[in-house]
C-alpha cells in the first residue's frame, strides 16, 4: 500500500506535487472557516460569532480606513524592542553561563524558579512601576522571550565541539578571539532556533499584555472592540495579528536559511 503510493507520487511532476501539498496543508483551515461560516447564525447567534465573510469585510474596512496601521506599528515596535533586548541579554547570559561557572551558579536557580511563571501575570506589577503603555509591554515581551533564547544559547555554548576549540588553539587562537572565531559561530544555529521559538511567544506575550491594560496596539483594539460588543472588529483584529505573526515566522525562517548556508 505505502509502496504503491510512493511510486505513484514519484510519477507526479514536482511543481504539481508542491501545489498539491500546499493545498493539503491549508485544508484544515478551509474546513474550519467553512464550519465557522455555517455555524454562525445557526448553531451560534451571528452577534456573538460573526461569520468569516463579515470579518473579512471588517478587515478590509480597517485596512482601507487606515485605522489599524498605527496600532499595528505600535505592537510591532513593542515586539521588536522586547525581542531585540531579550536576544542581546539572552545570548550573553546563555553563553556566559556555559563558559563561566559563577555566572551559571548565580542565574541557574533564578531561571529555574521564574521559568513556570506566566510572564503576563506580572503585568499588574509592571504597570505599577512603568505605567500603562510601551514600557510595560516591552518588559513583558522581553521576559517572555528571554528563556527560550537563554536556554538555546546556553545549550549550544555548553556543547561546542571540544575538537573545534582545540583545532583553533593549536593554530594560535586564544582568549577573546576563541570566543569570536569559534564559540559564537558554533552556537549561532541554536541561537537562531531560540529566536525562532521566541517570535510566536513575543506575539502571545504582547497581545496578552495589551489586553490586560494598554493605550494602543492590536491588543488594545481587540479589548475595546470586545468591551463595546463590536465582535466583527474584535475578530478582525485577532485575524490580522495572527496573520502578521504567521508571516513574521515564515519570513524569519527564510532569512535563517540564507544565513546558515553551511549547516
Amino acid at each position, binding site marked *: 500500500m505505502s509502496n504503491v503510493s510512493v511510486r505513484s507520487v514519484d510519477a507526479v511532476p514536482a511543481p504539481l506535487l508542491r501545489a498539491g501539498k500546499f493545498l493539503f496543508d491549508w485544508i484544515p483551515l478551509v474546513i474550519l472557516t467553512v464550519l465557522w461560516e455555517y455555524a454562525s447564525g445557526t448553531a451560534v447567534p451571528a452577534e456573538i460569532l460573526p461569520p468569516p465573510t463579515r470579518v473579512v469585510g471588517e478587515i478590509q474596512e480597517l485596512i482601507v480606513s487606515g485605522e489599524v496601521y498605527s496600532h499595528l506599528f505600535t505592537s510591532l515596535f513593542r515586539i521588536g524592542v522586547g525581542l531585540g533586548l531579550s536576544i542581546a541579554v539572552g545570548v550573553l547570559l546563555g553563553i556566559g553561563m556555559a563558559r563561566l561557572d559563577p555566572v551559571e551558579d548565580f542565574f541557574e536557580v533564578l531561571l529555574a524558579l521564574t521559568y513556570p511563571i506566566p510572564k503576563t501575570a506580572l503585568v499588574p506589577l509592571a504597570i505599577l512601576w512603568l505605567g500603562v503603555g510601551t514600557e510595560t509591554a516591552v518588559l513583558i515581551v522581553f521576559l517572555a522571550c528571554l528563556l527560550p533564547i537563554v536556554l538555546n544559547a546556553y545549550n549550544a555554548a555548553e556543547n561546542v*565541539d571540544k*575538537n*573545534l576549540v*582545540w*583545532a*583553533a*588553539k*593549536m*593554530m*594560535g*587562537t586564544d582568549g577573546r578571539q576563541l570566543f569570536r572565531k*569559534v564559540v559564537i*559561530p*558554533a552556537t*549561532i544555529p541554536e541561537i537562531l532556533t531560540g529566536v525562532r521559538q521566541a517570535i510566536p511567544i513575543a506575539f502571545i506575550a504582547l497581545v496578552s499584555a495589551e489586553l490586560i491594560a494598554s493605550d494602543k496596539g492590536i491588543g488594545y483594539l481587540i479589548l475595546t472592540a470586545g468591551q463595546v460588543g463590536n465582535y466583527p472588529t474584535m475578530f478582525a483584529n485577532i485575524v490580522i495579528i495572527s496573520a502578521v505573526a504567521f508571516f513574521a515566522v515564515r519570513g524569519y525562517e527564510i532569512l535563517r536559511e540564507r544565513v546558515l*548556508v*553551511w*549547516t
Partner: protein
Amino acid sequence: MTERTLDGHVSISNLEKVYDDGAERTTAIKDLSFDIEGGEFASIVGPSGCGKSTLLYLVAGFLDETSGSIEVDGDPIDGPGTDRGVVFQDYALFPWRTVMENVTYGLEEQGYTKEERRSRAQKYIDMMDLSGFEDNYPKELSGGMKQRVGLARTLAYDPKILLMDEPFGALDQPLRESLQDQLIDIWGDLDKTVVFVTHDVEEAVYLSDTVMVMTRHPGTKKNVTKVDLDRSQTREAIITSNEFTETKNDVWKSLREETQPEVQP
C-alpha cells in the same frame, strides 16, 4: 654541532595521565617514556582504549599531564602551540568556513596578508587534490575529502611536528593507500616529525621509521620496533619484501598479546 639534526625532537619521560571527572579517576597513561627524533616518522599502535589519543593530545598540549614531562627540542610544552599540528580523527573542520577558509585559518592567526594566505593555502589544496572545492562547505564533502582538508589545514601553517590520530581510519583502501603515499612524500619533502596513531599494523610499518606498541589499558610503552625499509621502492616491492613482512608480523604478534590477553601462557 657537526651532525645535522632536525628540529622537532619530542621527548616524553615518565608520563602519567589520570582523568578525574570528580566521581571517577581513570588512569589512561602510566609510566611512559619515549623519544622521537626530529624528522622521524613514529607510529603508535595499541588496543582500543589504551590511551593513544590521550598521548597525542598530551603532546599537542590540549591536555595537562598528571606527572612526568613532555619536551619539544628541550623545552617543556606549555599548552597548544603552532609548532605542533594535529590531524583529527573526526576532521574537526570549522563547518561555517569553506574549504579555503579552513585551510587559511592558521595563516590568518599568523598575520599573513590575504593574498599570501590564499596562495599558500592553494598550494596545499592542490597538493591534496581539492582544487575546485575551495568554496564548498565541509558538509558538502565526503569523509576522504574532509580528511584531506584537515591535512591541508594543518600543513598550511607549517608546524614542525605533525600529530595524526587515526587519520585514515574511516577511508576505503585505495584512498587510504594514496593518502599514505602522499604523506610519505610530504614527510620526505618537508622535514617534519610525524607521530601517527593507527590501529592498522600494516599502515604503521609501511609508513614509519619506528613503531611503538602500547599495552592495553592503562597504556604504557610495550616495545619499540625500528623499521628499515628502502623507501625508494614501489609500494608493491615494499609490502612483498621479507623485511616488511617480518617486521609486520613481529608488531602484529606483540599487539595480539594485548588484544587477546587470555591466551597468554
